[in-house]
């Protein structure tokens, strides 16, 4: 383990966790409203290319991230229209979103292979970043790392303290009861889905603009699916999702470091470790049936059709 510094590891962990955190926080809101959108991977890859293209064309990473959020949201609205208006199966439609997103992004991305995006600068915290250990770990990142954490706090506060958040949860727990109370179930869900799409788009753009940073086909490599697993891991609670994201960020960074350190473990085994750990965590979280059933929104994945 020599040669791997804890300081650098923790700093890199924050960066590695950001894409899946952004996507998972968005998906938390979607699932809290009772919708299961399995298209996170497709929305992330679409965000990755939209953000990349906009950033390259305008030279502004900020506009790139906005474009990514827009791209992800627009794609998610296809899902919203199909599942909420045309009442299609959510699992199948989510998969369609992922399949389409992967093809569509590859199509747009053709002319962007090998292009370098404009760099996203780190925020200047002044003297704070000079604090030993804490400075490099906490105060030396680009803006999106903090956006991820702020979004976690915002979603937590929204779900816990606001009336709108309460309505959203009511819709997710029992859409029939919420409908009977006069809440616009479909409209609320469409808004939630669009938010989830925008967040997934941001997460994808973070991969293509900051983490890698360049465009390659299928570059999200399952991050969307890991984000979906994170929501289950976090038991639909924002702060736990954040901890989960850091955990997975840590594993990703650690295995990359171990690969670089040339440790006597096959590279492939290290590369598959994030996926294996995700499965393991899913098993642990779902094994306690009572608790899993208690946390999951009761109407999750069910089609809502107002009969009156």
């Amino acid at each position, binding site marked *: 383990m020599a040669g791997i510094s804890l300081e650098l590891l923790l700093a890199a962990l924050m960066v590695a966790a950001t894409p899946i955190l952004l996507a998972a926080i968005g998906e938390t809101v979607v699932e809290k409203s009772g919708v299961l959108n*399995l298209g996170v991977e497709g929305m992330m890859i679409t965000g990755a290319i939209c953000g990349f293209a906009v950033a390259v064309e305008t030279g502004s990473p900020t506009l790139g991230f906005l474009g990514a959020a827009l791209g992800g949201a627009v794609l998610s609205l*296809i899902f919203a*229209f*199909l599942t909420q208006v*045309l*009442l*299609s*199966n959510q*699992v*199948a*439609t989510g*998969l*369609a979103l992922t*399949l*389409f*997103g*992967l*093809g*569509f992004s*590859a*199509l747009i*991305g*053709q002319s962007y292979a090998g292009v370098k995006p404009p760099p996203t600068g780190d925020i200047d915290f002044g003297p704070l970043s000079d604090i030993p250990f804490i400075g490099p770990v906490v105060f030396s990142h680009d803006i999106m790392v903090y956006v991820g954490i702020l979004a976690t706090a915002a979603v937590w506060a929204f779900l816990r303290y606001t009336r709108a958040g309460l309505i959203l949860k009511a819709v997710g727990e029992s859409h029939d009861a919420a409908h009977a109370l006069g809440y616009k179930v479909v409209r609320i869900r469409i808004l939630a889905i669009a938010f989830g799409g925008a967040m997934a788009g941001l997460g994808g753009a973070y991969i293509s603009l900051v983490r890698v940073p360049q465009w390659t*086909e299928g570059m999200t*490599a*399952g991050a969307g*699916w*890991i984000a*979906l*697993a994170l929501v*289950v891991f976090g038991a639909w609670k924002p702060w736990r999702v954040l901890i989960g994201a850091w955990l997975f960020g840590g594993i990703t960074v650690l295995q990359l470091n171990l690969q670089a350190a040339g440790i006597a473990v*096959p590279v*492939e*085994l290290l*590369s*598959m470790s994030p*996926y*294996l750990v*995700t*499965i393991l965590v*899913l*098993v642990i979280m*779902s*094994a306690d*049936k009572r608790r*899993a059933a208690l946390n999951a929104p009761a109407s999750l994945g069910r089609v809502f*059709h107002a*009969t*009156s």
Partner: protein
Amino acid sequence: MIRLEKRPTPSKMWTYLTPIVAVLLTMIAGGLMFAALGKNPVEAIRTIFYDPLFNEQFAAYSRPQLLVKAAPLILIAIGLSLGFRAGVWNIGAEGQYIIGAVVGGGVGLAFYPSGSPLIFPLMIVAGGIGGWAWAMIPGLLRVWFNTSEILVSLLLVYVAEQILASMSLGLMRNPEGGGFPGSRNFQQWDAVANVELIPGTGMHWGVVAAFLAVIGAYVLLAKHVLGYQIRLTGAAPRAARFAGVSPSRLILTCMGISGALAGLAGLFELTGPAGQISIDFNSGYGFTAIIVAFLGRLHPVGILLAGLLMALTYIGGELAQFMLSVPAAAIQAFQGMLLFFLLAVDVLTNYRIRLARTDTKTGAA
């Protein structure tokens, strides 16, 4: 104001019509996409759907390819459709396809260079078992721990891809390959080569297996008690449980069958068209088969037709790439679009569209 009214039973007519409507809508939307790419839309659509079959210059090559490409799609989609009907979502067929090929190929290579006629059947069995075992992981986790089989089966695709990379770079690398990644070429090993059975048709053992799977699934669903249980669980899960259907056993059966068929598809592809285990051995059949299963309305005969149609888009896509320099990714987007339209028009199968003016209805529920 447009209202949807649930039909008491799904419309028979629309069940047959929706795939056709979806294909037509996809052609229109796809044409717009090609136009946006600066290609002649009519020419592009014709190149994809018509030229591979009827163009004098290309048809001789393309027609046999139809069966070659359709076979793995049909084989996998048949297995998936059984699960989808019962609400068991195995979406990691791509991984089971890889593992089937790796296990079957590994068993074969252990006997290299034997000329025994028993090796090929043995590899087929091993390939099926490989895919079955890989699908059992999400199946058993679902049954034991109630873990989402959707996420686990999908995540295992990435694990399988790493195993594939490891195998083609390490354990199964051709010792006479001059250090290049990839296994020995099974096509050059006469005892196991999955060759064309009837010259000029593209018919290989995988195609035979695909046809057998279609017939088998048809009989299973129509005549066998397991088929009845699958249909019952899909239609009314609670009723099925009261009728004595064990959900756990059904999950394991559906996962197992779909995994085994995907493994077989991988093995036939390995010994046939692909030839060797290599890093880029898998080409997305496991995912496209999901579209095939839905396009075929989860019905064996429908899947047969849908598989052929989807194979056509692959071949036509390659042709369009070559003739009109349409990017390969456009075809992938095209296939994804097809699933979108299918799911969209499916509303007509289950709901009646009513034009109702809300003001004339005075609160009648």
